[in-house]
């Protein structure tokens, strides 16, 4: 028989189909429930996995090729950066606080996303969905590693980076991001996709990465800019995956709508709370600022977010429940949190400082309705207090943490920026505290989950530390007098200025 085949030219779409979903089959020796045990319990109804539209069509041969090209460039640049003392090209060492928070709180999140996507990349019964999730799983470990590698050289010269692995598990403020990712991973596969794939990657990622990477560029940090650029095309794929996933769920069954909407409400609010850390970075930590947090929100939150939710309205999706509250809080959150961080700077593995007069003028220009009225007076008060006592303004009283987002309950009531917002719920005879209605709602929907949260502040007061602050610092790998405290008196400032003068003068 003549087997010579007229190899018909296949369309890219058909070819990709053969290279992915045609590989799968319906199991007959095992039940679907045995092979995909977690796909039912969340109540999401999927009738036809074949209706999944591949958000991108990338076969492994092209994946290896493109990614290897990016990897070569990335490591060439960070090698050169390390070799040429690239760290001396940053604006000044205040900038490093943003990097420290990033390495301690966000890079571990990349790793968690890697594990989470590997899990859902196995648990979803559709091959198209599985492959897309697996590619994100391998991308996310790339991001965790490129971030560690890019920041590794800073660790050699500056404080606050050295204990990032211990900080991730033990220090108090990282539990804001950790609990976010743990929450997503503890959820079922569909909720995970809404939490990370949609809310984080699609709705919130621009508010995190764009300001962060632009901040790096503005402040002369080539290493970070490089991992940012290098991750961009991966992120574009992840965003299309997140969007496809939500559309797929909504198109499959009308009963999915209320479930998905509740997840969007929840994860939007969870995300806003995590982003409050980013807001302090944008408004306070960058020596040379790109734009204010408010301006970033206007572009990436309001413009992009409104377009997105308008697009999803045809499925019956409305904007997230906490949207209006968030919109009002944008003008306050960076100031409120930064004032908190300044008071608790003995317990942070990064430096903070009182904004200079020039910085405060910038803040009043960017926040004309709030900064001068509510926040400049508080900074001035701290300044006066420090001048009078000759000692840094520290608040050794430990903050009460929100049971849900794990931030100190320092945000204010909607409608009244002079009143701290407190909410509480009683569950099984125990009283739990929250920073907002959004966080209380999340708890009330799933109290059996959130009562398990590990709260770092109670941990400090319990056995074996029993409130011993020095013991706590040892336990979290925080070096007192080096990693923490005011930038003005820090070793980082001293060394940076010394080294820079060596590099730029003949003394």
């Amino acid at each position: 028989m003549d087997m010579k085949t007229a190899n018909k030219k296949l369309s890219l779409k058909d070819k990709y189909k053969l290279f992915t979903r045609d590989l799968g089959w319906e199991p007959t020796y095992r039940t679907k429930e045995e092979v995909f045990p977690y796909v039912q319990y969340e109540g999401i109804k999927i009738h036809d996995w074949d209706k999944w539209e591949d958000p991108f069509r990338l076969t492994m041969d092209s994946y290896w090729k493109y990614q290897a090209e990016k990897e070569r460039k990335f490591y060439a640049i960070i090698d050169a950066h390390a070799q040429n003392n690239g760290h001396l090209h940053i604006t000044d060492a205040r900038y490093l606080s943003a990097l420290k928070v990033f390495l301690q709180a966000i890079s571990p999140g990349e790793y968690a996303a890697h594990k989470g996507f590997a899990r859902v990349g196995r648990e979803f019964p559709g091959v198209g969905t599985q492959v897309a999730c697996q590619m994100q799983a391998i991308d996310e470990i790339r991001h965790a590693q490129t971030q560690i590698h890019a920041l590794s050289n800073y660790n050699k010269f500056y404080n606050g980076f050295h204990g990032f692995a211990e900080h991730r598990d033990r220090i108090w403020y990282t539990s804001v991001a950790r609990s976010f990712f743990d929450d997503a991973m503890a959820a079922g596969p569909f909720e995970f996709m809404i939490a990370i794939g949609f809310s984080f990657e699609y709705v919130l990622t621009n508010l995190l990465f764009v300001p962060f990477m632009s901040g790096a560029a503005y402040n002369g940090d080539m290493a970070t800019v490089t991992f940012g650029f290098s991750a961009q095309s991966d992120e574009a794929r992840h965003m299309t995956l997140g969007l496809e996933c939500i559309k797929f769920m909504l198109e499959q069954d009308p009963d999915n709508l209320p479930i998905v909407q509740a997840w969007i409400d929840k994860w939007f609010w969870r995300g806003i709370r995590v982003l409050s850390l980013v807001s302090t970075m944008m408004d306070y930590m960058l020596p040379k600022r790109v734009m204010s947090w408010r301006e970033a929100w206007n572009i990436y939150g309001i413009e992009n977010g409104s377009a997105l939710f308008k697009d999803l309205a045809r499925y019956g999706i409305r904007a997230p429940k906490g949207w209006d509250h968030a919109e009002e809080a944008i003008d306050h959150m960076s100031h409120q949190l930064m004032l908190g961080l300044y008071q608790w700077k003995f317990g942070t593995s990064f430096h903070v400082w009182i904004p200079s007069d020039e910085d405060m003028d910038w803040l009043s220009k960017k926040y004309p309705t709030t900064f001068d009225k509510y926040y400049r007076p508080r900074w001035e008060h701290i300044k006066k207090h420090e001048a009078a006592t000759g000692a840094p303004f520290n608040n050794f009283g430990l903050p009460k943490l929100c049971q849900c987002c794990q931030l100190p309950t320092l945000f204010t009531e909607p409608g009244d920026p002079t009143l701290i917002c407190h909410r509480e719920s009683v569950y099984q005879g125990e009283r739990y505290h929250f920073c907002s209605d959004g966080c209380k709602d999340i708890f009330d929907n799933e109290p059996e989950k959130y009562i398990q949260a590990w709260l770092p502040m109670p941990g400090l007061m319990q056995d074996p530390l029993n409130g011993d602050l020095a013991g706590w610092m040892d336990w979290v790998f925080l070096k007192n007098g080096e990693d923490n405290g005011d930038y003005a008196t820090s070793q980082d400032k001293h060394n940076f200025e010394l080294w820079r003068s060596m590099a730029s003068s003949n003394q």
Partner: protein
Amino acid sequence: MQIDLRTVSIQPLRNTFDHLVRRFGDKPASRYQEGSYDIQAAENLHYRPTWDPEQELYDTSITKIVMQDWYALKDPRQFYYSTYTLARARQQDSMEANFSFVESRGLTDLLPADLRQIALDLLVPLRHAAWGANQNNTFICGYGYGTTFTQPCIYHAMDNLGIAQYLSRLGLLLGGTEALDAGKAAWLDGEAWQPLRRYVEDCLALRDPFELFVAQNVALDGLLYPLVYERIVDEHLAGRGGSSVAMLTQFMTDWFDETRKWVDAVLKVAAGESEHNRAQLQEWINAWKCRAASAVLPVVEQVFGAEADDLVSEQVAAFKARIEKTGIAL
């Protein structure tokens, strides 16, 4: 002539991160170490999974293997994302060259019809087995503990997908979409393939990541790859004028050769940890090896008929010798 370029020399404050100093001493760390050790959350996990409240988010007790330190299971290739991707991109370059060599010279047209049929019957259904392997390694990565053990599994999973795609390309080249349809029909209903499909589906129902590692990466691949790619493609087909097929499966031969070093290293360290582990691994490998041997036998029979039995037995013996070098008596 060497020119010594001068830069401002600054004494670093420290060599590396605290967790790496603890493990390896106070010296600069490699990128493999920085990107692999202790980067998974270990303490103060916030919530139990709603999908299985019996488990922790990262749980060492979901497998019967017990390790004092899961990071001891390191990858001798020291693959982290970058080195992995660069290695595969190089291999892909030569695979691309092989495919275009075969295509441009019309070598598949020169392939004797019986060899072409053997290649199609044998290799095309295996794209489904490779997809099963992809899911299993994705599982081990997702649920296994400790990055040194789990990160090679996501690389392995993507390799499995790559192999499934190379096999699909091979099928298209040799027989068009009809060949893929026929291969899938054989996988689903052909008698010769049912034991193997059952094996793969049984693996898909396993939830112990280390047992799955044994069933898929040790036992099944340990017999299937050398039999199919070394004995049948590289020796049998190539020896009879089918070397163009061997060019199209070069990745698989090289890949098995490379990855078995990692698989063996994992077994060796896990078995060396305790008698408990050694006994457990022995039990698993024995059981899965027997099943794998009987699952691949009818596949090999398609090519070798009555001789297949001897061929598989030989391979089982070679497998046994390989595994015993890791300290696990079979």
